[in-house]
Protein backbone atom coordinates (compact mmCIF):
# COMPACT_ATOMS: atom_id res chain seq x y z
CA UNK A 1 0.00 0.00 0.00
CA UNK A 2 1.27 3.46 -0.73
CA UNK A 3 0.53 6.09 1.80
CA UNK A 4 0.66 9.88 1.69
CA UNK A 5 3.85 10.07 -0.34
CA UNK A 6 3.98 13.86 -0.28
CA UNK A 7 4.70 15.85 2.87
CA UNK A 8 1.68 17.34 4.57
CA UNK A 9 0.81 20.60 2.92
CA UNK A 10 0.63 23.27 5.56
CA UNK A 11 -2.86 24.66 5.59
CA UNK A 12 -2.72 28.44 5.58
CA UNK A 13 -3.10 30.40 7.73
CA UNK A 14 -2.21 27.96 10.51
CA UNK A 15 -1.45 24.30 10.73
CA UNK A 16 -3.76 22.98 13.47
CA UNK A 17 -1.39 20.16 14.31
CA UNK A 18 1.75 22.21 14.91
CA UNK A 19 3.10 22.03 18.45
CA UNK A 20 6.12 23.48 20.19
CA UNK A 21 7.99 21.49 22.80
CA UNK A 22 11.15 22.79 24.47
CA UNK A 23 11.59 25.38 21.75
CA UNK A 24 11.29 22.87 18.91
CA UNK A 25 8.49 23.21 16.43
CA UNK A 26 6.96 19.93 15.33
CA UNK A 27 4.65 20.08 12.32
CA UNK A 28 2.46 17.58 14.12
CA UNK A 29 2.53 15.92 17.55
CA UNK A 30 3.09 12.37 16.28
CA UNK A 31 6.45 10.82 17.10
CA UNK A 32 7.05 7.06 16.74
CA UNK A 33 8.51 5.68 19.99
CA UNK A 34 12.03 4.49 20.62
CA UNK A 35 12.64 0.84 19.82
CA UNK A 36 9.61 0.55 17.58
CA UNK A 37 10.79 2.63 14.63
CA UNK A 38 14.36 1.36 14.19
CA UNK A 39 16.43 4.23 12.84
CA UNK A 40 13.54 5.55 10.75
CA UNK A 41 14.94 4.39 7.41
CA UNK A 42 13.28 0.99 7.75
CA UNK A 43 9.88 2.65 7.20
CA UNK A 44 10.69 4.30 3.88
CA UNK A 45 9.21 1.43 1.84
CA UNK A 46 5.87 2.18 3.52
CA UNK A 47 5.57 5.97 3.66
CA UNK A 48 7.52 9.22 3.53
CA UNK A 49 8.73 9.82 7.10
CA UNK A 50 8.58 13.58 6.43
CA UNK A 51 4.88 13.12 7.13
CA UNK A 52 5.74 12.79 10.84
CA UNK A 53 6.43 15.51 13.38
CA UNK A 54 9.50 13.52 14.35
CA UNK A 55 10.59 10.15 15.68
CA UNK A 56 12.69 8.64 18.45
CA UNK A 57 15.61 6.43 17.51
CA UNK A 58 16.32 3.04 19.07
CA UNK A 59 18.20 3.56 22.38
CA UNK A 60 21.81 4.48 21.61
CA UNK A 61 24.67 3.40 23.84
CA UNK A 62 28.39 4.29 23.62
CA UNK A 63 29.29 0.89 22.13
CA UNK A 64 27.05 -1.49 20.16
CA UNK A 65 25.14 -3.75 22.54
CA UNK A 66 24.53 -7.44 21.91
CA UNK A 67 21.23 -7.65 23.78
CA UNK A 68 19.50 -10.56 25.51
CA UNK A 69 19.24 -14.15 24.23
CA UNK A 70 15.97 -15.22 22.53
CA UNK A 71 13.08 -15.62 22.97
CA UNK A 72 12.85 -11.87 23.42
CA UNK A 73 9.17 -11.30 22.78
CA UNK A 74 5.90 -12.89 23.82
CA UNK A 75 2.46 -11.74 22.83
CA UNK A 76 -0.14 -11.41 25.60
CA UNK A 77 -3.79 -10.33 25.58
CA UNK A 78 -3.87 -6.82 24.12
CA UNK A 79 -0.13 -6.41 24.38
CA UNK A 80 3.32 -7.87 24.18
CA UNK A 81 6.24 -8.44 26.50
CA UNK A 82 9.74 -7.65 25.30
CA UNK A 83 13.20 -8.11 26.72
CA UNK A 84 15.40 -6.99 23.85
CA UNK A 85 18.16 -5.78 26.14
CA UNK A 86 18.82 -2.66 24.08
CA UNK A 87 20.63 -4.29 21.19
CA UNK A 88 21.72 -1.32 19.07
CA UNK A 89 24.36 -0.26 16.56
CA UNK A 90 26.08 2.14 18.97
CA UNK A 91 26.10 5.92 18.78
CA UNK A 92 29.06 6.20 16.36
CA UNK A 93 27.53 3.91 13.79
CA UNK A 94 24.27 5.86 14.11
CA UNK A 95 26.06 9.14 13.41
CA UNK A 96 28.13 7.79 10.53
CA UNK A 97 25.71 5.40 8.82
CA UNK A 98 22.14 6.43 9.63
CA UNK A 99 22.11 10.16 10.29
CA UNK A 100 23.47 11.28 6.88
CA UNK A 101 20.61 9.43 5.17
CA UNK A 102 18.03 10.81 7.59
CA UNK A 103 18.98 14.43 6.89
CA UNK A 104 17.15 14.19 3.58
CA UNK A 105 13.82 14.06 5.43
CA UNK A 106 11.88 16.92 6.93
CA UNK A 107 11.21 15.40 10.35
CA UNK A 108 12.69 16.02 13.80
CA UNK A 109 15.03 13.34 15.04
CA UNK A 110 15.02 12.63 18.75
CA UNK A 111 18.01 10.54 19.77
CA UNK A 112 17.11 8.13 22.55
CA UNK A 113 20.11 7.84 24.88
CA UNK A 114 20.91 4.86 27.05
CA UNK A 115 23.74 3.96 29.42
CA UNK A 116 24.72 1.65 32.23
CA UNK A 117 26.43 4.48 34.07
CA UNK A 118 26.35 8.25 34.21
CA UNK A 119 29.51 8.32 32.08
CA UNK A 120 27.78 6.23 29.39
CA UNK A 121 24.96 8.74 29.09
CA UNK A 122 27.42 11.62 28.87
CA UNK A 123 29.56 9.84 26.29
CA UNK A 124 26.56 9.32 24.00
CA UNK A 125 25.45 12.93 24.42
CA UNK A 126 28.95 14.26 23.73
CA UNK A 127 29.16 12.23 20.52
CA UNK A 128 25.69 13.43 19.42
CA UNK A 129 26.41 17.09 20.23
CA UNK A 130 28.80 17.20 17.27
CA UNK A 131 26.34 15.54 14.91
CA UNK A 132 24.19 17.67 12.66
CA UNK A 133 20.50 16.83 12.28
CA UNK A 134 19.47 15.77 15.79
CA UNK A 135 16.73 17.93 17.37
CA UNK A 136 16.67 16.68 20.95
CA UNK A 137 17.75 13.92 23.30
CA UNK A 138 15.47 11.56 25.11
CA UNK A 139 17.08 10.00 28.19
CA UNK A 140 15.93 6.45 28.69
CA UNK A 141 16.24 6.10 32.45
CA UNK A 142 13.53 3.50 32.48
CA UNK A 143 14.43 0.39 30.52
CA UNK A 144 13.35 -2.65 32.55
CA UNK A 145 15.25 -5.15 30.44
CA UNK A 146 18.89 -4.82 31.33
CA UNK A 147 20.47 -6.30 34.40
CA UNK A 148 22.00 -3.10 35.76
CA UNK A 149 21.57 0.48 34.71
CA UNK A 150 18.68 2.35 33.21
CA UNK A 151 15.94 1.73 35.73
CA UNK A 152 18.09 2.39 38.75
CA UNK A 153 18.23 6.00 37.57
CA UNK A 154 14.56 6.17 36.74
CA UNK A 155 13.25 4.62 39.94
CA UNK A 156 14.93 6.98 42.35
CA UNK A 157 14.22 10.74 42.42
CA UNK A 158 17.76 11.58 43.53
CA UNK A 159 19.53 9.51 40.86
CA UNK A 160 17.07 10.66 38.18
CA UNK A 161 17.86 14.27 39.09
CA UNK A 162 21.59 13.57 39.00
CA UNK A 163 21.58 12.07 35.52
CA UNK A 164 19.25 14.81 34.24
CA UNK A 165 21.43 17.58 35.63
CA UNK A 166 24.62 16.08 34.25
CA UNK A 167 22.98 15.51 30.86
CA UNK A 168 21.68 19.07 30.74
CA UNK A 169 25.17 20.42 31.46
CA UNK A 170 26.65 18.43 28.61
CA UNK A 171 23.84 18.66 26.07
CA UNK A 172 23.71 21.34 23.40
CA UNK A 173 20.11 20.34 22.69
CA UNK A 174 16.91 20.02 24.71
CA UNK A 175 16.71 17.02 27.03
CA UNK A 176 13.53 14.97 27.39
CA UNK A 177 13.52 12.49 30.27
CA UNK A 178 11.57 9.27 29.68
CA UNK A 179 9.84 8.24 32.87
CA UNK A 180 9.36 4.73 34.17
CA UNK A 181 5.92 3.51 35.19
CA UNK A 182 7.76 1.04 37.41
CA UNK A 183 9.03 3.77 39.74
CA UNK A 184 7.45 3.56 43.17
CA UNK A 185 7.29 7.32 43.37
CA UNK A 186 6.51 8.46 39.83
CA UNK A 187 5.50 11.97 40.82
CA UNK A 188 8.62 12.34 42.97
CA UNK A 189 10.82 11.35 40.02
CA UNK A 190 8.88 13.68 37.71
CA UNK A 191 9.30 16.64 40.05
CA UNK A 192 12.97 15.82 40.58
CA UNK A 193 13.84 15.80 36.88
CA UNK A 194 11.92 19.03 36.32
CA UNK A 195 13.87 20.72 39.11
CA UNK A 196 17.08 19.30 37.65
CA UNK A 197 16.41 21.13 34.40
CA UNK A 198 14.64 18.63 32.11
CA UNK A 199 13.02 20.40 29.16
CA UNK A 200 10.20 17.87 28.90
CA UNK A 201 9.21 14.40 30.05
CA UNK A 202 7.89 11.47 28.05
CA UNK A 203 5.88 8.67 29.61
CA UNK A 204 5.37 5.81 29.90
CA UNK A 205 8.03 3.26 29.15
CA UNK A 206 6.96 -0.40 29.35
CA UNK A 207 5.56 -1.96 32.54
CA UNK A 208 7.45 -4.94 33.95
CA UNK A 209 5.49 -8.13 33.39
CA UNK A 210 5.85 -11.88 33.12
CA UNK A 211 4.28 -14.74 31.20
CA UNK A 212 4.80 -18.45 31.84
CA UNK A 213 4.42 -21.38 29.45
CA UNK A 214 2.12 -23.82 31.21
CA UNK A 215 3.57 -26.91 29.49
CA UNK A 216 7.28 -26.34 30.02
CA UNK A 217 6.75 -24.36 33.26
CA UNK A 218 9.32 -21.88 31.95
CA UNK A 219 8.94 -18.13 31.49
CA UNK A 220 8.07 -17.35 27.87
CA UNK A 221 10.98 -14.90 27.72
CA UNK A 222 14.58 -16.03 28.17
CA UNK A 223 15.10 -12.98 30.43
CA UNK A 224 12.13 -14.24 32.53
CA UNK A 225 10.52 -10.80 32.86
CA UNK A 226 9.91 -8.20 30.18
CA UNK A 227 8.31 -4.86 29.43
CA UNK A 228 4.60 -4.85 28.61
CA UNK A 229 3.48 -2.53 25.81
CA UNK A 230 0.46 -2.13 23.56
CA UNK A 231 -3.26 -1.37 24.10
CA UNK A 232 -3.26 -3.24 27.43
CA UNK A 233 -1.22 -0.47 29.10
CA UNK A 234 -3.11 2.53 27.68
CA UNK A 235 -5.43 3.29 30.62
CA UNK A 236 -2.48 3.14 33.01
CA UNK A 237 -0.48 5.46 30.76
CA UNK A 238 -3.36 7.95 30.44
CA UNK A 239 -3.73 8.01 34.23
CA UNK A 240 0.01 8.58 34.71
CA UNK A 241 0.14 11.38 32.12
CA UNK A 242 -2.85 12.96 33.84
CA UNK A 243 -1.23 12.78 37.28
CA UNK A 244 2.15 14.02 36.12
CA UNK A 245 0.46 16.86 34.24
CA UNK A 246 -1.06 18.04 37.53
CA UNK A 247 2.35 18.58 39.10
CA UNK A 248 4.69 19.60 36.25
CA UNK A 249 4.89 22.74 34.17
CA UNK A 250 7.28 21.36 31.54
CA UNK A 251 5.61 19.61 28.56
CA UNK A 252 4.58 15.95 28.71
CA UNK A 253 4.79 13.54 25.79
CA UNK A 254 2.26 10.72 26.16
CA UNK A 255 3.16 7.11 25.33
CA UNK A 256 1.46 3.78 25.86
CA UNK A 257 -0.84 1.70 23.70
CA UNK A 258 -1.55 4.42 21.15
CA UNK A 259 -2.63 3.12 17.76
CA UNK A 260 -5.21 5.61 16.46
CA UNK A 261 -6.06 9.32 16.57
CA UNK A 262 -8.74 8.56 19.19
CA UNK A 263 -6.10 7.03 21.45
CA UNK A 264 -3.82 10.03 20.97
CA UNK A 265 -6.56 12.56 21.75
CA UNK A 266 -7.18 10.88 25.12
CA UNK A 267 -3.56 11.63 25.97
CA UNK A 268 -3.88 15.27 24.83
CA UNK A 269 -6.95 15.68 27.04
CA UNK A 270 -5.00 14.17 29.96
CA UNK A 271 -2.27 16.78 29.52
CA UNK A 272 0.16 15.62 26.84
CA UNK A 273 1.37 18.06 24.15
CA UNK A 274 2.56 15.28 21.85
CA UNK A 275 2.34 11.51 21.64
CA UNK A 276 4.56 8.61 20.75
CA UNK A 277 3.28 5.53 18.96
CA UNK A 278 5.09 2.28 19.67
CA UNK A 279 3.91 -1.30 19.37
CA UNK A 280 1.24 -0.29 16.83
CA UNK A 281 4.00 0.29 14.25
CA UNK A 282 4.73 -3.43 14.12
CA UNK A 283 1.36 -4.72 12.98
CA UNK A 284 0.72 -1.71 10.75
CA UNK A 285 3.87 0.00 9.47
CA UNK A 286 1.70 2.93 8.29
CA UNK A 287 0.05 3.40 11.70
CA UNK A 288 1.95 6.61 12.53
CA UNK A 289 1.15 8.22 9.18
CA UNK A 290 -2.51 7.27 9.55
CA UNK A 291 -2.50 8.77 13.04
CA UNK A 292 -1.42 12.14 11.59
CA UNK A 293 -4.24 11.98 9.06
CA UNK A 294 -6.68 10.97 11.79
CA UNK A 295 -5.74 13.99 13.91
CA UNK A 296 -6.20 16.30 10.94
CA UNK A 297 -9.66 14.85 10.38
CA UNK A 298 -10.49 15.27 14.09
CA UNK A 299 -9.52 18.95 14.06
CA UNK A 300 -11.56 19.49 10.91
CA UNK A 301 -14.71 17.68 11.99
CA UNK A 302 -14.65 18.79 15.64
CA UNK A 303 -13.80 22.38 14.69
CA UNK A 304 -10.65 22.34 16.79
CA UNK A 305 -8.54 25.29 15.60
CA UNK A 306 -5.34 24.02 17.16
CA UNK A 307 -4.68 20.61 18.65
CA UNK A 308 -3.08 22.36 21.63
CA UNK A 309 -6.57 23.66 22.50
CA UNK A 310 -7.46 20.23 23.83
CA UNK A 311 -4.26 19.71 25.83
CA UNK A 312 -5.23 19.17 29.46
CA UNK A 313 -8.87 19.86 28.62
CA UNK A 314 -10.26 16.86 30.46
CA UNK A 315 -13.37 17.88 32.45
CA UNK A 316 -13.50 16.30 35.85
CA UNK A 317 -17.01 17.43 36.73
Amino acid sequence: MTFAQSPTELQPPTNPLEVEICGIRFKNPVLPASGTFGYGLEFLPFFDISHLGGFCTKGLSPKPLKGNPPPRIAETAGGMLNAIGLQNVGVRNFIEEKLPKLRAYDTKIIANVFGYSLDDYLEVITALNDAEGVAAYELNVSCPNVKQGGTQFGNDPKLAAEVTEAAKKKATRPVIVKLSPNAGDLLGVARAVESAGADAVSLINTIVGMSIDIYSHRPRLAFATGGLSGPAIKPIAVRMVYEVSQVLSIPRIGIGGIATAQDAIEFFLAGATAVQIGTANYADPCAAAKLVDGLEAYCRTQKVARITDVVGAVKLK
Partner: protein
Amino acid sequence: MLDLTGRIERNQLFGHYGRICLLFPDRQVVVAPGQFGMLRPNQSVEPLLRRAMAVYTVKPTPAGTELEFIYQVLGRGTAAIQRLVPGQLVDCLVPLGKSYDESPVLVGDREAVLVAGGVGAASLYLLAESLRRQSVSVRLFLGGRSAIDLIGLEDFAALGCKVHLATNDGSRGVAGFVTEPLLRYLVDHTSEVHAGKFVVYTCGPTPMMKRVAEICEEARVLAYASLEERMACGFGVCVGCVAEVHCGPSEAGEPETDFHRVCIEGPVFRCDQLVWG
Protein backbone atom coordinates in the same frame (compact mmCIF):
# COMPACT_ATOMS: atom_id res chain seq x y z
CA MET B 1 8.65 -5.40 0.72
CA LEU B 2 5.03 -4.34 0.34
CA ASP B 3 2.05 -4.08 2.65
CA LEU B 4 -0.64 -5.66 0.51
CA THR B 5 -4.24 -6.66 0.98
CA GLY B 6 -5.08 -10.06 -0.45
CA ARG B 7 -8.48 -11.57 -1.11
CA ILE B 8 -9.00 -15.14 0.01
CA GLU B 9 -9.67 -17.47 -2.91
CA ARG B 10 -9.56 -20.69 -0.87
CA ASN B 11 -8.91 -21.64 2.75
CA GLN B 12 -8.95 -25.43 3.02
CA LEU B 13 -8.48 -27.22 6.31
CA PHE B 14 -6.86 -30.62 6.76
CA GLY B 15 -6.00 -32.04 10.18
CA HIS B 16 -4.44 -29.27 12.26
CA TYR B 17 -3.45 -27.41 9.13
CA GLY B 18 -4.88 -25.00 6.65
CA ARG B 19 -3.91 -24.09 3.10
CA ILE B 20 -4.87 -20.54 2.23
CA CYS B 21 -4.72 -18.94 -1.20
CA LEU B 22 -4.63 -15.14 -1.45
CA LEU B 23 -5.16 -13.16 -4.64
CA PHE B 24 -3.43 -9.80 -4.90
CA PRO B 25 -5.44 -8.14 -7.66
CA ASP B 26 -3.52 -6.33 -10.40
CA ARG B 27 -0.25 -6.90 -8.58
CA GLN B 28 2.93 -8.59 -9.59
CA VAL B 29 4.38 -10.09 -6.42
CA VAL B 30 7.84 -11.56 -6.76
CA VAL B 31 8.94 -14.01 -4.06
CA ALA B 32 12.23 -15.91 -3.88
CA PRO B 33 12.36 -19.42 -2.36
CA GLY B 34 12.39 -19.27 1.45
CA GLN B 35 10.97 -15.77 1.76
CA PHE B 36 7.97 -15.23 3.98
CA GLY B 37 5.03 -12.96 4.69
CA MET B 38 3.51 -11.47 7.87
CA LEU B 39 -0.25 -12.10 7.91
CA ARG B 40 -3.29 -10.98 9.85
CA PRO B 41 -7.00 -10.79 9.07
CA ASN B 42 -7.63 -7.40 7.43
CA GLN B 43 -7.36 -4.57 10.01
CA SER B 44 -7.68 -6.96 12.94
CA VAL B 45 -6.47 -5.61 16.29
CA GLU B 46 -6.50 -8.79 18.36
CA PRO B 47 -4.25 -10.71 18.42
CA LEU B 48 -2.00 -7.71 18.21
CA LEU B 49 0.77 -8.96 15.96
CA ARG B 50 0.87 -10.51 12.51
CA ARG B 51 2.02 -14.11 12.09
CA ALA B 52 5.02 -15.18 9.99
CA MET B 53 4.28 -17.67 7.22
CA ALA B 54 6.57 -19.02 4.51
CA VAL B 55 5.26 -18.48 1.00
CA TYR B 56 4.33 -21.92 -0.30
CA THR B 57 3.48 -21.20 -3.93
CA VAL B 58 3.41 -18.16 -6.22
CA LYS B 59 1.20 -18.06 -9.30
CA PRO B 60 0.86 -15.12 -11.67
CA THR B 61 -2.69 -15.02 -13.07
CA PRO B 62 -4.49 -12.63 -15.41
CA ALA B 63 -6.17 -11.16 -12.31
CA GLY B 64 -2.96 -10.54 -10.39
CA THR B 65 -0.75 -12.81 -8.28
CA GLU B 66 -1.87 -15.73 -6.15
CA LEU B 67 0.17 -16.69 -3.10
CA GLU B 68 -0.45 -19.82 -1.08
CA PHE B 69 0.55 -20.45 2.53
CA ILE B 70 0.26 -23.61 4.62
CA TYR B 71 -0.29 -23.02 8.31
CA GLN B 72 -0.43 -25.16 11.39
CA VAL B 73 -3.16 -24.11 13.80
CA LEU B 74 -1.37 -23.55 17.11
CA GLY B 75 -2.78 -20.55 18.97
CA ARG B 76 -4.82 -17.37 18.62
CA GLY B 77 -3.14 -16.02 15.50
CA THR B 78 -3.42 -19.10 13.36
CA ALA B 79 -6.91 -19.85 14.74
CA ALA B 80 -8.01 -16.42 13.50
CA ILE B 81 -6.66 -17.22 10.03
CA GLN B 82 -8.36 -20.61 10.10
CA ARG B 83 -11.77 -18.94 10.62
CA LEU B 84 -11.49 -16.81 7.47
CA VAL B 85 -13.57 -17.67 4.41
CA PRO B 86 -13.22 -16.94 0.68
CA GLY B 87 -13.91 -13.32 -0.21
CA GLN B 88 -12.52 -11.98 3.09
CA LEU B 89 -9.35 -9.91 3.14
CA VAL B 90 -5.92 -10.55 4.67
CA ASP B 91 -3.15 -7.99 5.33
CA CYS B 92 0.16 -9.34 4.12
CA LEU B 93 3.63 -7.84 4.35
CA VAL B 94 5.60 -9.60 1.67
CA PRO B 95 8.21 -10.63 0.55
CA LEU B 96 10.36 -10.67 3.69
CA GLY B 97 13.75 -12.12 4.57
CA LYS B 98 16.63 -13.68 2.66
CA SER B 99 16.06 -16.60 0.33
CA TYR B 100 17.84 -19.95 0.09
CA ASP B 101 21.16 -19.68 -1.70
CA GLU B 102 20.77 -21.85 -4.80
CA SER B 103 24.16 -21.09 -6.32
CA PRO B 104 26.20 -23.88 -4.64
CA VAL B 105 23.92 -26.56 -6.07
CA LEU B 106 23.80 -25.11 -9.59
CA VAL B 107 27.40 -26.02 -10.46
CA GLY B 108 28.47 -29.44 -11.73
CA ASP B 109 26.39 -32.55 -11.25
CA ARG B 110 25.08 -31.79 -7.77
CA GLU B 111 22.02 -32.81 -5.84
CA ALA B 112 19.91 -30.71 -3.49
CA VAL B 113 18.95 -32.63 -0.36
CA LEU B 114 15.91 -31.10 1.31
CA VAL B 115 15.08 -32.10 4.88
CA ALA B 116 11.65 -30.99 6.04
CA GLY B 117 9.77 -31.54 9.26
CA GLY B 118 6.03 -30.90 9.48
CA VAL B 119 4.94 -27.49 8.25
CA GLY B 120 8.61 -26.58 7.62
CA ALA B 121 8.08 -28.22 4.22
CA ALA B 122 6.10 -25.12 3.23
CA SER B 123 9.28 -23.06 3.16
CA LEU B 124 11.09 -25.56 0.88
CA TYR B 125 8.55 -26.02 -1.90
CA LEU B 126 9.48 -22.91 -3.92
CA LEU B 127 13.12 -23.98 -3.68
CA ALA B 128 12.32 -27.45 -5.03
CA GLU B 129 10.26 -25.89 -7.81
CA SER B 130 13.01 -23.47 -8.80
CA LEU B 131 15.71 -26.14 -8.78
CA ARG B 132 13.63 -28.63 -10.75
CA ARG B 133 12.96 -25.92 -13.34
CA GLN B 134 16.75 -25.69 -13.70
CA SER B 135 16.94 -29.50 -14.00
CA VAL B 136 18.74 -29.93 -10.69
CA SER B 137 18.22 -33.26 -8.96
CA VAL B 138 16.19 -32.77 -5.77
CA ARG B 139 15.89 -35.33 -3.00
CA LEU B 140 13.40 -34.71 -0.20
CA PHE B 141 13.48 -36.23 3.26
CA LEU B 142 10.03 -35.43 4.62
CA GLY B 143 9.09 -36.15 8.21
CA GLY B 144 6.08 -35.67 10.42
CA ARG B 145 4.38 -36.99 13.48
CA SER B 146 1.86 -38.99 11.44
CA ALA B 147 0.86 -39.42 7.78
CA ILE B 148 -1.33 -36.27 7.86
CA ASP B 149 1.73 -34.22 8.89
CA LEU B 150 3.65 -35.01 5.70
CA ILE B 151 3.02 -31.55 4.30
CA GLY B 152 3.14 -31.06 0.54
CA LEU B 153 4.01 -34.67 -0.28
CA GLU B 154 2.00 -34.84 -3.53
CA ASP B 155 3.26 -31.43 -4.68
CA PHE B 156 6.94 -32.31 -4.17
CA ALA B 157 6.44 -35.68 -5.87
CA ALA B 158 4.75 -33.98 -8.84
CA LEU B 159 7.89 -31.85 -9.33
CA GLY B 160 9.91 -35.04 -9.76
CA CYS B 161 11.68 -34.91 -6.38
CA LYS B 162 12.94 -38.23 -5.02
CA VAL B 163 11.05 -38.55 -1.77
CA HIS B 164 11.95 -40.39 1.47
CA LEU B 165 9.32 -40.43 4.20
CA ALA B 166 9.46 -40.85 7.96
CA THR B 167 6.75 -40.60 10.59
CA ASN B 168 7.11 -40.83 14.34
CA ASP B 169 4.22 -43.29 14.59
CA GLY B 170 5.21 -45.29 11.51
CA SER B 171 1.88 -44.61 9.77
CA ARG B 172 3.77 -43.73 6.56
CA GLY B 173 7.38 -44.27 5.50
CA VAL B 174 9.95 -45.43 8.03
CA ALA B 175 9.14 -45.13 11.72
CA GLY B 176 11.18 -42.56 13.65
CA PHE B 177 12.85 -39.24 12.98
CA VAL B 178 13.48 -38.09 9.42
CA THR B 179 17.13 -37.45 10.25
CA GLU B 180 17.77 -41.21 10.42
CA PRO B 181 17.09 -41.94 6.72
CA LEU B 182 19.09 -38.78 5.91
CA LEU B 183 22.07 -40.08 7.86
CA ARG B 184 21.78 -43.51 6.22
CA TYR B 185 21.65 -41.92 2.76
CA LEU B 186 24.79 -39.89 3.36
CA VAL B 187 26.63 -42.89 4.84
CA ASP B 188 25.61 -45.02 1.83
CA HIS B 189 26.95 -42.34 -0.54
CA THR B 190 30.25 -41.54 1.13
CA SER B 191 32.20 -41.07 -2.08
CA GLU B 192 29.65 -38.56 -3.41
CA VAL B 193 29.69 -36.81 -0.06
CA HIS B 194 33.48 -36.49 -0.34
CA ALA B 195 33.15 -35.25 -3.90
CA GLY B 196 30.90 -32.43 -2.64
CA LYS B 197 27.84 -33.62 -4.54
CA PHE B 198 25.24 -32.70 -1.93
CA VAL B 199 23.94 -29.40 -0.64
CA VAL B 200 21.45 -29.69 2.22
CA TYR B 201 18.52 -27.31 2.87
CA THR B 202 16.41 -27.81 5.96
CA CYS B 203 13.35 -26.33 7.63
CA GLY B 204 11.36 -27.74 10.52
CA PRO B 205 11.40 -28.05 14.29
CA THR B 206 14.60 -26.76 15.88
CA PRO B 207 15.70 -30.15 17.34
CA MET B 208 15.42 -31.66 13.86
CA MET B 209 17.43 -28.87 12.24
CA LYS B 210 20.03 -29.10 14.98
CA ARG B 211 20.47 -32.81 14.25
CA VAL B 212 20.69 -32.09 10.49
CA ALA B 213 23.38 -29.50 11.24
CA GLU B 214 25.34 -32.04 13.33
CA ILE B 215 25.13 -34.71 10.64
CA CYS B 216 26.21 -32.26 7.94
CA GLU B 217 29.05 -30.86 10.00
CA GLU B 218 30.40 -34.33 10.62
CA ALA B 219 30.06 -35.28 6.94
CA ARG B 220 31.36 -31.84 5.83
CA VAL B 221 28.30 -31.19 3.74
CA LEU B 222 27.27 -27.60 3.09
CA ALA B 223 23.92 -27.04 4.78
CA TYR B 224 21.41 -24.21 5.10
CA ALA B 225 18.61 -23.94 7.65
CA SER B 226 15.57 -21.69 7.69
CA LEU B 227 14.94 -20.69 11.30
CA GLU B 228 11.82 -19.84 13.17
CA GLU B 229 11.75 -17.24 15.92
CA ARG B 230 8.92 -15.22 17.42
CA MET B 231 8.46 -12.03 15.43
CA ALA B 232 6.72 -8.79 16.26
CA CYS B 233 7.36 -6.81 13.06
CA GLY B 234 9.02 -8.99 10.40
CA PHE B 235 10.88 -6.03 8.86
CA GLY B 236 13.80 -5.46 11.18
CA VAL B 237 12.73 -2.80 13.67
CA CYS B 238 11.80 -4.63 16.89
CA VAL B 239 14.99 -6.76 17.10
CA GLY B 240 12.86 -9.41 18.76
CA CYS B 241 13.53 -12.31 16.41
CA VAL B 242 17.23 -12.98 16.86
CA ALA B 243 19.40 -16.07 16.41
CA GLU B 244 22.91 -16.44 17.81
CA VAL B 245 25.61 -16.61 15.13
CA HIS B 246 29.38 -17.00 15.20
CA CYS B 247 31.11 -13.81 14.15
CA GLY B 248 34.80 -14.67 14.19
CA PRO B 249 37.38 -14.22 16.90
CA SER B 250 37.55 -11.05 18.99
CA GLU B 251 40.66 -8.86 19.17
CA ALA B 252 41.77 -11.09 22.05
CA GLY B 253 41.36 -14.17 19.82
CA GLU B 254 38.31 -15.45 21.72
CA PRO B 255 35.44 -16.95 19.72
CA GLU B 256 32.61 -14.43 19.64
CA THR B 257 28.94 -14.53 18.84
CA ASP B 258 26.35 -11.98 17.92
CA PHE B 259 22.56 -11.86 17.61
CA HIS B 260 21.24 -11.53 14.07
CA ARG B 261 17.64 -10.79 13.15
CA VAL B 262 15.92 -13.83 11.67
CA CYS B 263 13.59 -11.57 9.64
CA ILE B 264 16.39 -9.58 7.94
CA GLU B 265 19.69 -11.47 8.08
CA GLY B 266 17.66 -14.74 7.92
CA PRO B 267 15.47 -16.71 8.05
CA VAL B 268 17.96 -18.77 6.02
CA PHE B 269 21.42 -19.16 7.56
CA ARG B 270 24.34 -21.44 6.82
CA CYS B 271 24.20 -24.14 9.49
CA ASP B 272 27.86 -23.71 10.39
CA GLN B 273 27.29 -20.04 11.20
CA LEU B 274 24.68 -20.79 13.84
CA VAL B 275 25.16 -21.45 17.53
CA TRP B 276 22.84 -24.41 18.02
CA GLY B 277 22.97 -24.39 21.85
